[in-house]
């Protein structure tokens, strides 16, 4: 039932729909808002979901204040119901005292803010509504931008695919005719002519490689690279790569070695792409190592990863180039001396492929001291062991969390640290599935640690659960990259519930 008349439409007025069945609460809120001079509110009140729907459908409502426990709906269902049908309208949730946990959940699900009714005052409510409106606009704009960017990326990928297919046939024809003349199929050629033609053929092959690599890169960037990750014996891939390159290195008097321990755990990765990465790295090593130089391939277990590396004693990479070396089309050799030019795409693709396999890549090099390119691959796990890293500077919290975790029925491998910075280092080797991170640490704040995790770490960082006694952190956490939020103090049940929901998602993705 619509209890109040609709307001006059005026541009400067914020039109609020209050969905509240308690008449005195509703009257109280109405009074708070009507007192406001700047901004001016126009309030309409309904006492059930159905009329609320009806009113929203007619349009003209800027924001909804929603009580979750209405007679014809309950709690989360109420909000979900509204939000699904009106995704662009901001909602501020009103909760009764004992609904606070629920209110936190609906905010996570997309409501702009929540209030416990008995704590409400006018200034707070007005401010909350204004901010909710602003955030909503920003959020819609962000969603639209993301959609547009994803669209553009897909379009780009399609364009590159089309263009590369179109380029191939004429290129094939050029190559074939030039090589027909070179091979003397259509008549004799003198040596000098042969040389010219050989050069033309080589460049046809360069073009082919460039087209293939551009296509790969576009596919990867559009998220359409198909990988088959499985239990893989990386030492076998290394040996195959070694055998492939042996003739080439022998021809230049280079020494090629491999360093593989007798027992090596299996990695979890796609063998084709890892082979491609190896071919790229070893190819580069050969190119940038002088005749007579040495190239080593190796792998070993490092924590929860398999580390693989290619090391050469060639000319090394200066610091300015090191920063750019993984960028697409950056050609190190363009500025640094003779030798056949590459495509500039190999390392960019290699880095992407490693990351798609759940690993990360790095380079260690100095001019004159050679280079070592390494990458990490996650180990193959037969049974699901979830790795948890707890980061909190309060010892009691860490002990409590560990107690809760050990009390769960889950198969967990738990590490902890009191330092955010140490946490980053540990995560690099440990590869946690979940990081439980405190927001308010003294040395380096949790939010900063969180952004560092998301920045520096490879994509497989896993989920981050933020802990805090501070409700304001709630609003920021999603933007900073946390996957969920746990308000202190919390019970064992609270923690385990979050854990199970976060890790289940993680498991399917991997």
């Amino acid at each position, binding site marked *: 039932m619509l209890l109040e008349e609709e307001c006059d439409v005026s541009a400067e007025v914020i039109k609020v729909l209050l969905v509240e069945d308690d008449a005195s609460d509703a009257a109280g809120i109405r009074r708070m808002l009507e007192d406001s001079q700047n901004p001016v509110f126009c309030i309409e009140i309904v006492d059930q979901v159905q009329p609320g729907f009806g009113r929203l459908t007619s349009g003209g409502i800027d924001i909804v204040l929603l009580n979750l426990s209405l007679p014809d709906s309950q709690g989360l269902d109420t909000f979900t119901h509204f939000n699904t049908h009106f995704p662009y309208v901001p909602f501020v949730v009103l909760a009764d005292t004992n609904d606070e946990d629920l209110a936190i959940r609906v905010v996570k699900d997309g409501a702009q803010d929540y209030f416990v009714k008995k704590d409400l005052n006018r200034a707070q409510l007005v401010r909350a509504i204004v901010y909710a409106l602003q955030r909503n606009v920003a959020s819609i704009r962000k969603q639209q931008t993301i959609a547009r960017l994803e669209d553009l990326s897909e379009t780009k990928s399609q364009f590159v695919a089309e263009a590369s*297919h179109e380029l191939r046939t004429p290129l094939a024809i050029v190559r074939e005719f030039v090589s027909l003349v070179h091979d003397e199929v259509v008549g004799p050629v003198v040596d000098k002519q042969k040389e010219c033609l050989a050069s033309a053929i080589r460049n046809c092959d360069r073009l082919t490689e460039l087209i293939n690599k551009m296509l790969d890169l576009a596919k990867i960037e559009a998220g359409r690279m198909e990988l088959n990750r499985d239990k893989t014996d990386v030492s076998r891939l290394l040996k195959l790569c070694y055998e492939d390159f042996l003739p080439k290195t022998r021809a230049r008097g280079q020494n090629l070695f491999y360093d593989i321990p007798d027992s090596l755990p299996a990695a979890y990765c796609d063998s084709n792409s890892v082979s491609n990465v190896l071919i790229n790295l070893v190819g580069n090593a050969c190119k940038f190592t002088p005749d007579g130089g040495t190239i080593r391939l190796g792998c070993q277990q490092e924590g929860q990863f398999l580390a693989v590396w290619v090391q050469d004693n060639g000319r090394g990479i200066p610091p300015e180039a090191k920063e750019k070396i993984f960028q697409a089309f950056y050609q190190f050799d363009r500025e640094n001396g003779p030798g056949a030019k590459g495509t500039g795409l190999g390392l960019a693709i290699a880095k992407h492929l490693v990351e798609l396999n759940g690993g990360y890549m790095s380079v260690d090099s100095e001019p004159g001291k050679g280079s070592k390119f390494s990458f990490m691959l996650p180990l193959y796990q037969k049974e699901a062991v979830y790795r948890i890293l707890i980061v909190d500077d309060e010892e009691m919290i860490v002990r409590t969390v560990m107690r809760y975790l050990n009390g769960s029925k889950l198969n967990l491998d738990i590490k902890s640290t009191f330092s955010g910075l140490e946490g980053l280092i540990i995560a690099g080797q440990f590869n946690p599935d979940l990081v439980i991170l405190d927001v308010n640490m003294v040395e380096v704040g949790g939010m900063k640690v969180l952004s560092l995790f998301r920045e520096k770490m490879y994509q497989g960082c896993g989920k981050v659960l933020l802990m805090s006694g501070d409700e304001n952190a709630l609003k920021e956490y999603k933007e900073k990259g946390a996957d969920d939020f746990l308000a202190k103090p919390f019970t064992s049940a609270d923690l385990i519930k979050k854990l199970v929901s976060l890790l289940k998602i993680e498991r399917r993705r991997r």
Partner: protein
Amino acid sequence: MGGRDMADKKKILLVEDEPEFRLGVRMRLESKGYEVIEAEDGAVGLDKARNMAPDLIILDVMLPKMEGYQVARLLKFDAKYKPIPIIMLTARTQKSDKDMGSAVGVDAYLTKPFKAEELLEIIVRLLEKT
């Protein structure tokens, strides 16, 4: 080529819609002693495959009138023509193309541009098998 016995000359059917590409491949194959029959689309290709008894077929994936895979499937699912080796040519590098090729039962797969030596090697290998 002059001194060869006609019976020795292997017949290769080349089904490809780009005339210049056909010309280049024809010149290469003839220089190696093969007899070349050409077809400019899938329908003509299928017809010639059935009526001219080629020893090997080079078949492009993208063809007018009838798709390369369609031609390949019709030949491979017919006991009479199944033994003729088929090399699929493509400008595309999708994994799905290769899967399609294996599903139909083609004998080899080459991506354009390819090196003439590669094509010739595959032809020799496939002809030796039959």
